[in-house]
């Protein structure tokens, strides 16, 4: 009798554990902030899981994952950072997906010029240019790649104010402390204090890719994979499109 009781209690406990909602820790690029926050509420009510985001420069996030931060999903703004983690065997390669792309734009404060071409960035009107740190943060790396391709990088480099992530570059332009900045089109879209002065077309711009993957050390493999599947679903992609991301099909 007693053994029966213990066993049934154990079974109840186990099933309860299986049904208990997961808390997913998601490290994502700063440019994904608004889109992910919007989809989070829908996902949370649908799945019962809770999403805990950490937004920042993808390089800083990758660094934290390398140092052993307890993370379930990594959503990077470039391949380089994801590759770094793959090389260190920290992600589950079978779950890796290249979901989104983005467009680079040159932004200026609301009261700035209506149009500003890349070549004009070398001119005297532009004293300071905000970029996410071009040595490591994806947005900055893409911007440098683009300007180098145009042969403008050396002329522009001395004007660059490197920021911690792309949203910080956006904030610098919003504050008026710099004359221009290069950010993603999706960042410019959510800001009311800047306007787009130039859009880098997909053909002339760098290849931008946002890979996502489940991190190997996760304790919630099932819930993490469910979340990734959700990100590929129609409702999620619609949210990304709404914010201006390019969906790769």
């Amino acid at each position: 009798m007693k053994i029966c009781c213990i066993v049934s209690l154990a079974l109840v406990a186990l099933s309860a554990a299986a049904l208990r909602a997961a808390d997913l820790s998601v490290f994502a690029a700063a440019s994904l902030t608004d889109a992910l926050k919007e989809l989070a509420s829908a996902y949370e009510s649908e799945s019962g899981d809770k999403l805990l985001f950490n937004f920042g420069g993808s390089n800083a996030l990758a660094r934290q994952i390398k140092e052993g931060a307890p993370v379930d999903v990594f959503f990077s703004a470039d391949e380089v950072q994801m590759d770094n983690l793959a090389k260190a065997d920290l992600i589950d390669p079978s779950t890796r997906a290249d979901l989104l792309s983005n467009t680079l734009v040159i932004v200026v404060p609301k009261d700035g010029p209506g149009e500003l071409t890349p070549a004009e960035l070398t001119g005297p009107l532009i004293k300071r240019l905000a970029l996410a740190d071009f040595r490591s943060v994806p947005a900055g790396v893409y911007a440098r790649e683009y300007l180098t391709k145009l042969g403008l990088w050396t002329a522009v480099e001395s004007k660059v104010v490197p920021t911690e992530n792309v949203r910080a570059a956006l904030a610098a332009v919003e504050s008026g402390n710099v004359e221009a900045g290069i950010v993603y089109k999706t960042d410019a879209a959510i800001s009311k204090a800047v306007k787009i002065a130039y859009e880098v077309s997909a053909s002339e711009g760098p290849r931008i890719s946002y890979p996502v993957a489940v991190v190997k050390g996760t304790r919630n493999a099932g819930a993490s994979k469910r979340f990734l599947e959700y990100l590929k679903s129609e409702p999620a992609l619609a949210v990304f499109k709404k914010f201006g991301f390019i969906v790769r099909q």
Partner: protein
Amino acid sequence: MRSAEWEIVGFTFAMALLATFAILPFGVGLAWLLARKSWPGKSVVETLVALPLVMPPVATGLILLKVLGRKSPIGAFLQEHFDLEMVFTWRAVVAAMAVMSFPLLVRGARIAFEAVSPRLEQVATTLGATRLRVFMTITLPLAHRGIIAGSVLSFARALGEFGATILVAGNIPGRTTTLSVSIYSDIQLGHDGDAFRMLVVSVVLAFVAVWTSEWLFRRSTPAA
């Protein structure tokens, strides 16, 4: 250590020195007022002076950003009339260091002044000395070791300043990168070896500065 790294150390040292000299007259003057005078609202002043010591440095940095940025009255004024940019330049580095280390200078100098017996100053006045002469010939000479100790400590604080600096001066290679900011950015880039070297330099500098300051504090004996 590469030459670029030594340049960063040199830059940080120079900016901290500039910041310390800039706050010296104000800090010593305010310390004297706090030590010798009383007025309504004195406790408010004391609290305000101590704030940068206690507030999160980034919060102080944010205030500086708003106050010195282009859109602020001060920033706009400087830009229009002197074509002077504050934020994202070495001037912002000096400003951040000055604000963050000011409380330490005031504290050290105030203690030094309080240690000078007012009786000595009183006797000097009866002997015909003006307030300025009393300050220059009695108060200052007797307080100078404590003031120097406070300055050295404040200089050390300026050397290590990070939170406010990175916000208001950014991390512009070759222009505003200080020792602490370079350690941070090396870590961000994964250059641990570089970060560690700079870490050693900053520990050595801090150790020497604090040790010197403590030694000076010990040697400044109160007036006989």
